[in-house]
Structure formats: structure tokens, C-alpha cells
């Protein structure tokens, strides 16, 4: 074989132009958004949640328009001769409760509580979960053993009992303080399952060759954590957080239903359910209104979370035309 024949395939440039028309220049975010846009169910959920947020934001406006502040009773117009609350009608669009308060207005305020508590406690839980999970998974050793055990213990605690205990111990009367306590309690009981998943993710990321590559380049642990580990958790964290919100909303509703959540008279869907369950047979709307709103919200969040997961998970886009 001659050293340099003209026939050598090598005569061609080593890398001609580029691989024939790959799909170029799209960031992972753009790709995810393109996939998300095709998910009709997730889009509908997003719309429902936006409407729900508007409904919640408009709570004082509802009160103004109807002339029914959420904590004021209207014994004359809202209760009939027998003292029973009136059903949905011209004055009270979604009916009144036993004390003669407007259910629509109360539901709007309840939406505020649900969304605020749900989102804030989910964010707090994910923040805590990421911090603990990353630390535990990345540092390993004794730190990991201690943190992992703490998460195990948290998961083993009977959360309702602890929540009731806390509420009775502190005897909080102010709405803000009870709101804060509720958020803290929910976040505390949700972060552990979150942290566990993140810990597992980090441990598997740690085995990846690109982490080894970074280490062999001389990168410090802090750099590896922020440059290589955290960006790879974004998808997972986004999905988990969006799925944690509905859980937290239900958690809040449960606490309020039991009377250890947000303090009365501030309405919450949970406490409205609690009040309505006694008179379900005579005043069905007291139960149905908060129940439907709660269902709609949590379902939408769940579907949205699923949509985000499908959009961020590259494996799910392989085949669309599946019959």
C-alpha cells in the first residue's frame, strides 16, 4: 500500500460540512416547550389553573360586587324562615352557608389559601428536599448516613398527629401565624420523600462519566455540584414540585377540615368542607362547591405535572404515531 495515493479516502476533509441536516440550535427548554404544546390535556389544565388563579385574585372584587364580605353574615337574606341557608340563586350565586355567608366569596378566598399554601409549601419542601438530597447524595459518608436517617424518621412520623399536636400546643389565633405554621408543617412532612428521590438521582449522577471528567480536569466539589449536578436535576425538580403542589393542597384541606389548619374565620376549602359535611342533606352546595374546586385544582396540577414530565423526558418523544 502506498503512503499517499490520490485515492485515499482521507483526501476528503475529516468532517465534511455537518451531519446532513440535524435538527439544530434548539435548547432543551425549546424542545420541551415544543413537546408540551402538543399535550392538549396539559394545556387545558394550565388554562384551568390560570382561571383558578384569577378567581382567587378577584376574591375582594367578588365581595365588593356582591356586597358580601367573606366573614359577614346575612341572616335576613341568606337564611330562610326555618333558618336554613338559601341555595344558589340571584343574590347568592353559589348559595349561602349555615351562618348566612356567601359561599362564592368564601370559595374565592379559600382558593387563595389553597393556592398560596399549596405552592409555597411545595416550593419550600422542594428547596429543603434538594438541599438535603444533594448534600446527602453528593457528600456521602457519615453526612449521608445522618441525613438519610433523618429523612427516614420524618417519613415514619404520623403527620396528622404531629400537626394536631403542634396546633393545640401553640394555640395560634392569628390567621397569618396559622398560615405560616400550616405551610411549615406541610413542607416539613413533604421534603423527606422529595429529598430521597433527589438523593438517589444525585448518587446515579455521581457515577456518570461527565462528573468523573470534571473531577479529572481538577474541578472542585462546589463547582461540580453547581455546574454539573444541579442543572441535571432541573427537570426532575420541576416535575416533582409540580406534583407536590396538589398533594400539599390536599394536605392543607385535610388540616383545615380537622380544624388544625388555617384559623377561622378565614375560609379554606378544607374548613368549608368540614362545615358543609354536617348539613349535606339539606344544603348540598356547601359540600359540592369546595369539593369540585378542590378536585379541579388538584387534578389540573397533576395533569400539568404529567405534561411537564413527558415534555422533559426525552424518551417519551420517540414515537408519536402510536396506534
Amino acid at each position, binding site marked *: 500500500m502506498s503512503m499517499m495515493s490520490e485515492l485515499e479516502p482521507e483526501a476528503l476533509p475529516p468532517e465534511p460540512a455537518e451531519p446532513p441536516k440535524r435538527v439544530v440550535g434548539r435548547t432543551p427548554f425549546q424542545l420541551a416547550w415544543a413537546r408540551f404544546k402538543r399535550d392538549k390535556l396539559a394545556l387545558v389544565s394550565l388554562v384551568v389553573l390560570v382561571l383558578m388563579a384569577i378567581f382567587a385574585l378577584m376574591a375582594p372584587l367578588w365581595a365588593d360586587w356582591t356586597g358580601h364580605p367573606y366573614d359577614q353574615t346575612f341572616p335576613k337574606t341568606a337564611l330562610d324562615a326555618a333558618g336554613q341557608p338559601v341555595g344558589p340563586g340571584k343574590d347568592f350565586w353559589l348559595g349561602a352557608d349555615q351562618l348566612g355567608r356567601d359561599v362564592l366569596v368564601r370559595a374565592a378566598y379559600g382558593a387563595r389559601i389553597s393556592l398560596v399554601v399549596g405552592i409555597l409549601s411545595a416550593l419550600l419542601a422542594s428547596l429543603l428536599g434538594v438541599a438535603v438530597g444533594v448534600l446527602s447524595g453528593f457528600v456521602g459518608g457519615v453526612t449521608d448516613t445522618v441525613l438519610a436517617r433523618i429523612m427516614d424518621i420524618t417519613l415514619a412520623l404520623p403527620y396528622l398527629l404531629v400537626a394536631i399536636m403542634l396546633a393545640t400546643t401553640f394555640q395560634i389565633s392569628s390567621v397569618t401565624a396559622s398560615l405560616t405554621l400550616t405551610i411549615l408543617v406541610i413542607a416539613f412532612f413533604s421534603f423527606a420523600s422529595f429529598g430521597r428521590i433527589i438523593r438517589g438521582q444525585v448518587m446515579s449522577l455521581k457515577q456518570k462519566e461527565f462528573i468523573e471528567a470534571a473531577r479529572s480536569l481538577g474541578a472542585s466539589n462546589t463547582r461540580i455540584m453547581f455546574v454539573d449536578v444541579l442543572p441535571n436535576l432541573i427537570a426532575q425538580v420541576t416535575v416533582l414540585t409540580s406534583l407536590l403542589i396538589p398533594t400539599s393542597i390536599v394536605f392543607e384541606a385535610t388540616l383545615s377540615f380537622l380544624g388544625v389548619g388555617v384559623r377561622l374565620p378565614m375560609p379554606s376549602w378544607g374548613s368549608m368542607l368540614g362545615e358543609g359535611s354536617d348539613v349535606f342533606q339539606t344544603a348540598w352546595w356547601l359540600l359540592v362547591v369546595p369539593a369540585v374546586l378542590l378536585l379541579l385544582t388538584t387534578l389540573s396540577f397533576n395533569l400539568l405535572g404529567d405534561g411537564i414530565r413527558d415534555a422533559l423526558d426525552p424518551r417519551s418523544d420517540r*414515537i408519536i404515531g*402510536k396506534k
Partner: protein
Amino acid sequence: MSLLEVTDLRVSFNTADGVVHAVRGMSFSVDRGRTLGIVGESGSGKSVSTQTLMRLTPGARIGGRALFEGQDLLTMSDRRMRQVRGAEIAMIFQDPLSSLHPLYKVGRQIEEMIKAHDAGASKEQARKRAVEMLGLVGIPRPDRRVDDYPHQFSGGMRQRAMIAMALALNPKLIIADEPTTALDATVQAQILDLMRRLQREFDTALIMITHDLGVIADMADDVLVMYGGHPVEEAGRRDLYYRAHHPYTKGLLESVPSAAGTGDRLKAIAGQPPSLINLPSGCVFHPRCPFVHDRCRTEDPPLDAVGGAALSPGTAHRSACWLPHDITGLGEDADRARAAAAERGRAGGPGTGATKGGAA
């Protein structure tokens, strides 16, 4: 009639980025006792084609015919397909650990398969057969290992167990998809040895899919070289290695390090494999081909007979390339003839000849 006769198989998938043309017109046939080797790189369509025959590609758009003993695999009922799978056509995969169920004993998995296809078989009969098969593939003390779980087997032993499973129902055709790629060299030699012996004994037809030209040289009677979703050359084994016609086949054979002297540069094929979504015009190989001429850029060459004296008579030697069909082999003379032919093709093309001709 051949045992399996595939005509113009086409497979495509819809994905977010467009339609992936995984297989674009593939025809071949296999007879009992013969081994067909399908070589190709990743994305050449070699695995998708056989998975499609077994109807393991959900969501794919499929065209063409695949007659197995006269029945079309692509259109037969799901019920009939389930009977065919395992009993008449068996598959062996690259990674035995992911094909064996981790929570069931190896023997039990073989027994289940026997019973699924032969309702009359008693538990004792099935177990006896499982032990017999494990012994046949060289697993020592099979009466004891039959009760082991897959993780208790080493990589080579697992691949043996897979082969035992594939053979348990005495299939007429075995499709082996990169069966030794995950194994070490010394174990690969054992497994290939075993497959050769068993094929001879049971007179099965074998389709061997691999990227390893060494495995093909060792095992195959006939070879199909896949590139960009369709065969670019088909030939008897010796014809393929000593009388290669297609520049891609030639490039593959030459890029194996052992074929070159240690001092020289390796003869790499320039460029990257084509995207199956956006295929190049004309011949799919033309952007990487050192002998490209004008016609290659616009017209897709048909698979046509290669001239000259065949080394393995009985098997057609065909190649999809516009170069004259009497230039074969790897030698320098053949390369010079190819280059000259390509040069003629460039100069002769109206309009483009002047610019493209001198550039290369």
C-alpha cells in the same frame, strides 16, 4: 421456496423531528441450515428490520412482505404471531440480563416458554427439557443450575441460557441480534463456537446481526451490508471479503485496524452516518464516498449484479453503486480503476463536470 423470504421491507417511524426512514426497501431470503449475516453500523436499519419481522416495533409504518413458510409475518393475526415467536422463530439479544426476567429462576423461564407453546407438556416434562437444553449449551451440572436466578450466572452463562431458551422449542429460524457484543473476547469465541455447532445439529436457519466484520467472517454463509436503511451490497461470504464492490463495504473492510499495517494511518471513512430523517439525495453514501461522481448525487443506484467470477457460487452478488460492476476487491489496482471511472463520471456530466471534476 426459502424458509423466510422478505421482499421490499419498509419501516418508518413518526417522531417529533420528522419521519425516520429506518428501513427503505430490503429484500433477502434465508434457508434452513444457512446463516445470513447482516452487517451495518448503528442507524443502518439492521436491527429494526428483524424486530419488525417479529412485530416488535409498535407504532411503525410497515410495508413489504415477509413470507415465512408461505405465511406473511407482517399481516398474520396476533394470535398466530404469538405461536410463531419462540416456537418457530426465536431471538437472541445482545444483553441477556435484560431479556431474562430477574425474579424467576432460569429453568422456570424455559419451562414457562415450553408450556406456553405446548399445552400438553406436563411440569415434569417441561423441566426435563429445560435441564436438557441447559446441558446442551454447556452449562455444567444443569440439574442444579436450573434452579438458579439469572444474576447467579456470569455474562457468558446468561448468553448460553438465552440460547438454551431460544432452542428449547426447536425453532426453524433463529435471529441473533449482536449476540456477542456484550461479551469478552474469550467468551465470544466460546459462544460463537456453540452457536455454530448447534446450528449444524438442528439444521436451523440463522440470521446474525452484527457490526463486527470478524464475527461475520467466522459465521455467515451469505452477507448483507446495510447502510442508511437499505442493503448496499449482498454477496456470499468470500465474495464480500475478497471481491467487495461497494465503496462502503470496501471502506468498512479497510477501516479495521488489523487489515492495515501498524505504521500507516488507518483508512477511515470520512464523515458521519446519514440522518434517517433527512437522507441525502441520490445514493445515500455519496457524501462520504471517495469515488463520488455526478450521477451519484441525483440518482439512487439499484441493487444490480456484480460481474466477474464468483467465489461463492450459488449466492447472488449484487451491489447498489454506479461504479462499473466489474471493478471489485480492495487492491490498489481496483482503487485506481474506481478512481478513473469516477473521474469519467464527473467530466461527462453536463454543466457540473468542469467544477467538480478537478476539485477532488
